[in-house]
């Protein structure tokens, strides 16, 4: 004799008589989960704030980039020093000016 139910192609109708074995099994309470509830909630809180933190990070990075670009744009042109070949200073005594008779 087969233990297969008569109608195996459909789920039981809502008014079907519950199986006593299933009821007895369902009365067994699952062992409590050894979840670290505090750690889980802490991590959940951090995860829920992650998008906000990321937004602030992006905003700060954008503002830093804008500031850098503005600083580069406003920067004065560099001072260029050019060495010129200047003639040596004339240190020879000047000849006396000719005397004029008025």
């Amino acid at each position, binding site marked *: 004799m087969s*233990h*297969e*139910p008569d109608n*195996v*192609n*459909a*789920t*039981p109708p809502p008014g079907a*008589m519950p*199986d*006593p*074995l*299933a009821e*007895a*099994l*369902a*009365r*067994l*309470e*699952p*062992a*409590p*989960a*050894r*979840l*670290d*509830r505090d*750690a*889980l*909630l802490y*991590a*959940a*809180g951090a*995860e*829920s704030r*992650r998008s906000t933190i990321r937004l602030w990070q992006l905003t700060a990075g954008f503002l830093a980039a804008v500031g850098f670009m503005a600083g580069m744009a406003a920067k004065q042109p560099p001072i260029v020093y050019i060495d010129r070949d200047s003639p040596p200073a004339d240190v020879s005594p000047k000849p006396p000016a000719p005397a004029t008779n008025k």
Partner: protein
Amino acid sequence: MGPEQVADLVDRYGAALTLYARQWCACPEDVVQTAFLKLVRLRTPPDNLVPWLYRVVRNGAIDASRAAHRRQKYESAAAHEASQWFVPSDDPTGLDARQAAGALSQLPTETREIIVAHLWGGLTFEQIAQTMDSSAATCYRRYAAGLEALRAQLGAVCPTNPTT
């Protein structure tokens, strides 16, 4: 989804989800915790929250089991820890928790996960079918066959053929 809602979900479904994950892996708490964190990361909660949780836990537990196999550290954790599946019952007329867990551990994994999801997770066969990428009829067929196998092992009375 805020931490308060997550706390409520943990309190309501944590134990059943852990029992469900225990069918595959030896670290069910880690899998369940990861599933809850994945839920928090979602911008909008899924429509079918509980079946979604079961699906994520199932995938995570299977992945964890595969990883354990790769590391060669598995030791048939499901059967090994069967005695820890349920709280020992004080009801003398009820089933013995250890005996029931032992009988459950003897079932094929596909059958056992359906029974666990239906009896302790409260999922309908349609929801279980979505979780397993199967059909509701197949899930019910496996559920019924699993109950019959448990009935034979536990010596319980068949409701459709009452003794006279």
